C-alpha cells in the first residue's frame, strides 16, 4: 500500500452523506437480490451453502461506518440532511464576494451558520474583514439554506426550492431515494470540470 496524496481534495458533509446514502441503497437492493437467489436455489434444491458467485457481499466494517456516519450526518443538529446540490452551488457562489478562504467556505457549507456567533467562530477576524457585511452574509446563508427562518421571506425563486428539498429529505420513507437525488449526485460527484458545481472542485484551487 502506498499513500499517494493523503489530502487531494476536501469533501463537504453533504457529498459524503449523499455517497453513503447511495451505498446504503445499493446494499439494500443487493441483499434483496441475494435473498431472492437463495430462495430460488433452495426451491430448486441446488443451494450450495457458503457459496455465492453472482453478488458481492458488503463487508461488516463498511456497513458499520456507513450506518453510523449516516446517523451522524443526518442528525437534526446538522444542516446536512436538508441540503441540496443546487443549494450548495448557490451558497458557494453567494460566498464569493466575501473573500473567504476555502476552509472557511467549506465550514460555512457544512454548518450553515445562521447567527453571528456561529459565523464568528468559523471566520477569523470576522469584524475586520467583513465589517457591516456580516449580517448580510448570515441573512444570505439563511435564505439559501432554507432553514426554519425566523421570518418567512418569499422574495426569490430559491426559497420554495430549498423548502422542497427539506421536505423530501425529512421523509425517510423508501421513496426518499428518488430520481431527484440521483440526478443531484451525478452532477455533484462526477462533474469535476465545473469548478463552481461542487465544493470539492472549488477547493482544489490553490489558496493564497
Amino acid at each position, binding site marked *: 500500500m502506498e499513500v*499517494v496524496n493523503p*489530502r*487531494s481534495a476536501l469533501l463537504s458533509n453533504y*457529498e459524503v452523506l449523499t455517497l453513503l446514502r447511495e451505498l446504503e441503497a445499493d446494499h439494500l437492493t443487493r441483499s434483496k437480490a441475494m435473498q431472492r437467489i437463495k430462495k430460488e436455489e433452495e426451491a430448486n434444491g441446488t443451494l450450495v451453502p457458503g457459496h455465492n*458467485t453472482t453478488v458481492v457481499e458488503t463487508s461488516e*466494517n463498511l456497513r458499520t461506518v456507513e450506518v453510523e456516519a449516516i*446517523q451522524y450526518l443526518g442528525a437534526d443538529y446538522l444542516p446536512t440532511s436538508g441540503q441540496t446540490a443546487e443549494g450548495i452551488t448557490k451558497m458557494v457562489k453567494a460566498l464569493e464576494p466575501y473573500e473567504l478562504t476555502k476552509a472557511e467556505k467549506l465550514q460555512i457549507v457544512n454548518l450553515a451558520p445562521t*447567527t453571528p456567533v456561529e459565523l464568528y*467562530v468559523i471566520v477569523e477576524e470576522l469584524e475586520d474583514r467583513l465589517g457591516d457585511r456580516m449580517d448580510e452574509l448570515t441573512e444570505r446563508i439563511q435564505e439559501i439554506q432554507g432553514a426554519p427562518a425566523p421570518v418567512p421571506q418569499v422574495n426569490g425563486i430559491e426559497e420554495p426550492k430549498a423548502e422542497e428539498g427539506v421536505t423530501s429529505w425529512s421523509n425517510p420513507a423508501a421513496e426518499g431515494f428518488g430520481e431527484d437525488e440521483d440526478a443531484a449526485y451525478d452532477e455533484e460527484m462526477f462533474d469535476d470540470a465545473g469548478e463552481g458545481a461542487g465544493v470539492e472542485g472549488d477547493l482544489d484551487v490553490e489558496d493564497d
Partner: protein
Amino acid sequence: MFCLSIIKDKIPIHPQHFSISPEQTITAELNKKYSNRVLHDVGLCICVFDLSEVGEGKVRYGDGFLWYEVTFRMVVFRPFESEVVIARVKSSDEDGIRLTMDFFDDIYIPSIYLPQPSAFDPNERAHFWLPNSPLASTTELLDSPTSERMYIDQGEVMRVRVEQDEFVDDEPGPAKVVEGVVQEKTRGRAPYTVVCSIAEQGLGPVAWWNGAQVVEEGDEGEAMEEG
C-alpha cells in the same frame, strides 16, 4: 471534516468472484480492507470514492487469485486544525470531556481547553462553567450556587474547534502468558485521537449560544431557536 486521499494498492480477487465485474469486486475488496480503519497519518477511512486506475489482473505463482494494481480515491475522516465541528458529549471525567460523532468517538476536550473558570462536579459527573466569575480554585468553584453553573451534560450537542490530532501506531507485541494461560489482549491506545477546544466565545454546547442569541436579538432569533 472529510477529504479524499489517493491510495495505491495491490488487491487479490478470489476466483469465486470472477463472474462479477472487476470494478465491483475490487471496490468491495478495498472497502473490506480499509473501511472503518485508521490509516496512520491519513485518518479514518470511510469508504472508496472511486477507482482512478486499475491495472491488468495478474495471476501469481502459488494461488489462483487475480492481483490488480489499483489507484483509488478514499473518503477519509480527518478534520483539519482549527476546523469547527459539531459533536455530542459521550462522557466526562476529571481530566476532561469525551465527545462522539457516532462513527468516531476518540475526540477529547482536555480540561485546559475548557472555558475558564470551570470545574468538574463529581456528583453530577459533569463539568460546569461559571461565566464572569472571579473564583479560581476548584474548591471555591464547587461551593458556588448550583443555579449559576452552566453544566455540560452527557449527550449535549457541542460546537468545538479542532486543536490537534494524534496518531499512535502501537506494535501488537507478543501474547502475554500468566501461569501458562494466554491473557486476552487489552485494548491499547486509540490509533487516532482528535483534541478539541471549547475555550472560546461561541464554542461549547450549542444551546448556550442559541440562548444568548435570543437575548441579543429578541424575537427575531427566538422563533428559530425554539423550532
